[in-house]
């Protein structure tokens, strides 16, 4: 047991409490590629370098310009005229000596021409301020290579992110308000026996008041069953009656006044959720029914092998239920009663996980892999999180843009929201294709470009048969932006994108799916699946 903390542990302490040592390890083994060290790009990278990403490589063929220094914390005026990839790498590298920084002075288009496999080595490629054509080309290469691609752009006061990944699995999603796994509706044998060991009516006051509420609910449930044909309290009325039943169980003093029994109050408060029927959540059901879960091969990622193992458990030993999670919330109780109860759940969880392990081992053997190739620890973690598993599919850019598969419904039904900004971004891309520049970059262009941009908007809507209205105000505003990249919007996106990147790399928490739009004018945002 090492009590002495390394300086890295001290430095990363605040984030280790969020993703643990294993999350940090994943981060330190990752190599991220950033394309274009603009303000948005360097802000994203800053938020990956600080937490200790293993390595980064900046790909950028641009030279540093005066305006490019003005909004970028990682460029200085002394680097004007020099290569932007190198200049930014130096100042980003300086943030954290644990990180290895690299740069390639080349445009991504050139790399795609000469060496597309260059991108295969990365855990994640982040493309910033990319023209549409480059984005689509790169998207295609990365999709085929199975490399996750995160597209980010700051356009005036608008931030945009698009995540592209065929399949991203999450075991540790860390849900905010997870329901407990108490099995009160269907207590397993060991829990039943433990509950039987209590006799509330014969207990001394001290013990009575320090009996865990789980036991209290279980005992009164038995009473309820005997009077209600073994049916759980179903609706509000019945739950109220059940709560009242428990309330009547509170001890009274010699004057008939109820004693202060906090554990009974806790029981009453928890009736609402404690009696929820134990069942496999739909997201987990979907995972069990997925093709990847059904057809395990020697190439299957461990996530799917374990999924089938748990699925087999559910269908057999589990009797339709997931392996017991093994944790209980804190509650008013004396130490001994609480620990004993906690151990009942813990022991059952271990037993269930061991059974799942057997299924997993058999599965591995059946596809010619050594049974130890998935560790016990990993299987235990998977079992503990079985109710919170998530799989995210973010489809390709090609599918998003294709006339046959673009998401017409989503676009037309969300026009009251940030969706209009998405269409505007596509429109300025059209403008760029036609004019080799973005609208309104110089003051004198603004007025004239409004009409040209409007033509682009109309041609876009026509081409995709989108019967929607884009207000002139947005066309004017997007010309006004002049493709500016104000620092505060770049910084907002920098934080957002970096966190999504960390989710992808650590496989913890759930990434967005798949298009995020931020409007700094209204301080609102939306996520669309396009």
């Amino acid at each position, binding site marked *: 047991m090492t009590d002495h903390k390394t300086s890295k542990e001290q430095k990363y302490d605040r984030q280790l409490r969020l993703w643990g040592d294993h999350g940090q390890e994943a981060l330190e083994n990752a190599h991220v590629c950033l394309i274009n060290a603009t303000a948005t790009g360097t802000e994203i990278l*800053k938020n990956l370098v600080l937490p200790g990403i293993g390595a980064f490589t900046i790909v950028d063929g641009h030279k540093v310009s005066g305006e490019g220094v003005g909004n970028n914390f990682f460029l200085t005026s002394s680097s004007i005229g020099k290569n932007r990839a190198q200049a930014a790498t130096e100042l980003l590298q300086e943030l954290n000596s644990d990180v290895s920084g690299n740069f390639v002075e080349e445009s991504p288009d050139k790399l795609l021409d000469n060496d597309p496999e260059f991108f295969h080595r990365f855990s994640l490629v982040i493309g910033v301020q990319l023209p549409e054509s480059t984005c689509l080309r790169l998207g295609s290469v990365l999709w085929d290579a199975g490399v996750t691609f995160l597209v980010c752009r700051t356009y005036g006061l608008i931030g945009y992110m698009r995540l592209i990944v065929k399949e991203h699995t999450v075991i540790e999603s860390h849900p905010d308000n997870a329901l407990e796994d108490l099995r009160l509706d269907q207590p397993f044998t060991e829990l039943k026996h433990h509950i039987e060991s209590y006799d509330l009516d014969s207990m001394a006051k001290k013990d009575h008041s320090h009996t865990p509420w789980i036991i209290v609910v279980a005992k009164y449930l038995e009473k309820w069953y005997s009077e209600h044909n073994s049916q759980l309290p179903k609706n509000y009325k019945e739950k109220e009656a059940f709560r009242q039943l428990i309330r009547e169980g509170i001890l009274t003093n010699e004057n008939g006044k109820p004693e202060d029994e906090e554990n009974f109050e806790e029981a009453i408060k928890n009736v609402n959720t404690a009696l929820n029927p134990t069942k496999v959540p739909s997201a987990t059901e979907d995972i069990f029914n997925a093709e990847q879960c059904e057809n395990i091969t020697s190439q299957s990622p461990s996530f799917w092998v374990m999924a089938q193992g748990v699925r087999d458990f559910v269908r057999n030993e589990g009797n339709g239920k997931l392996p017991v999670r093994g944790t209980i919330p804190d509650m008013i109780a004396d130490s001994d009663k609480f620990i004993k109860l906690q151990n009942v759940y813990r022991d059952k969880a271990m037993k269930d996980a061991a059974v799942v392990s057997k299924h997993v081992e058999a599965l591995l053997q059946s596809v010619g892999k050594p049974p130890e190739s998935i560790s016990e620890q990993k299987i235990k973690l998977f079992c503990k999180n079985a109710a919170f598993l998530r799989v995210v599919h973010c489809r390709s850019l090609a599918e998003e843009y294709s006339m046959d598969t673009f998401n017409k419904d989503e676009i037309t039904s969300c026009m009251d929201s940030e969706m209009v900004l998405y269409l505007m971004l596509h429109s300025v891309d059209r403008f760029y294709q036609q004019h080799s520049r973005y609208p309104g970059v110089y003051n004198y262009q603004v007025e004239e470009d409004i009409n040209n941009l409007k033509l682009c908007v109309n041609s876009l809507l026509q081409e995709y048969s989108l019967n929607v209205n884009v207000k002139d105000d947005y066309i004017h505003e997007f010309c006004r932006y002049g493709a500016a990249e104000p620092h505060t919007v770049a910084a907002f996106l920098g934080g*957002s994108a970096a966190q999504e990147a960390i989710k992808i790399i650590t496989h913890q928490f759930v990434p967005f799916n798949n298009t995020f739009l931020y409007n700094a004018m209204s301080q609102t945002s939306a996520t669309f699946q396009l």
Partner: protein
Amino acid sequence: MNLLLFSLFREKKRRRIEELNENMVVDGGNGDRSDWQGRWDHVNKFLERAGPFTHPDFEPSTESLQFLLDTCKILVIGAGGLGCELLKDLALSGFRHIHVVDMDTIDISNLNRQFLFRPKDVGRPKAEVAADFVNDRVLGCNVVPHFKKIQDLDETFYKQFHIVVCGLDSVVARRWMNGMLLSLLIYEDGVLDPSSIIPLIDGGTEGFKGNARVILPGMTACIDCTLELYPPQINFPMCTIASMPRLPEHCVEYVRMLLWPKEKPFGDGVALDGDNPKHIQWVYQKSLDRAAEFSITGVTYRLTQGVVKRIIPAVASTNAVIAAACATEVFKIATSAYVPLNNYLVFNDVDGLYTYTFEAERKENCSACSQMPQDLQFLPSAKLQEVLDYLTENASLQMKSPAITTTLDGKNKTLYLQTVASIEERTRPNLSKTLKELGLVDGQELAVADVTTPQTVLFKLNFIS
């Protein structure tokens, strides 16, 4: 939100520019040696061009940039996770006259997100190192550091700023700052003078969650109006800690609260210092012993330190997002480029990215900003202790260690004060006396001072029967 405010804000701004121009002698041009071609292009597009979504008061001008660069004064409270980001964001948005206040020194655990600090800076004052870094990296920027508590500065200091933006980690400090800006408001015949309003932008983060809000003191919801949004910190019950531990955390609290004062392991009067590894090591070992006694598993060094220091997990990304949102609002208010956030933004990126924007409402009888007398209803036979409990436990007041004074027989009398040991001892017997016994009458005015506000709060005591 009152748009009239912004007209008057702009007027205040315009007057200041005129003053500055009058005072400028030779160096009259807008040329600045530290600027290069295109430096402010990204900013200028929002200042020089008209647009359909700008604030109704907005006028495109080539002078607005000068206002930002030369005249506008911003105060940043805190040079930590949010503070570092704020300084960078403001500096790169054209603000050059920035002051930053922070009473802390740099710790190694800050380095994962407070990017203006390096390992060699550990132990140095945050405000000073942050200012040095930004001034060095962003040419022409003049960040002035104050290695002080916010309470060490007075109204002459705070009055000089156009906008205050907070990146604090304590509700008490927020409330104090809120109270300070409220105390600067000028009312003429009961009407608020808008030019005395200093907007307050407040940001807060915790793990992957954060919020940003815009407060116009005297006009929109203040910190105290929405005190219920910050529920009081729940501590473990004493009986759990003393005799019925169940969680590893209970074991650590036992050692911290009961064992340490008893055993005084590092000497008499030596308080437990969460930053002293030797102290934490001792607590850790004793917590393990305690846990073993009750068959509790899970005590680790990391958990021990987390409980002792009440550590809140933190990452760079959330701080970056919230600070950026705050800085955007500072820019909007300073330039009228857009209508500011009205008035509260919530952010959470645990599952995808989620934002929620709403208008927090003013509380009619807010103890900080409503100017309404605060009523206290008690029986004359109630003890002073009950009044003290009310002041600390009431969700809308949440005072920390209130000092109660009143006027009796024409003289100022301290009924109870906790923060000075000798006075606490002298006034402690008053707590068990009834209000009647203390000589208080129906309608008695009580002045209450507390660390949560720079001004005393006046309460009117109403006797009930």
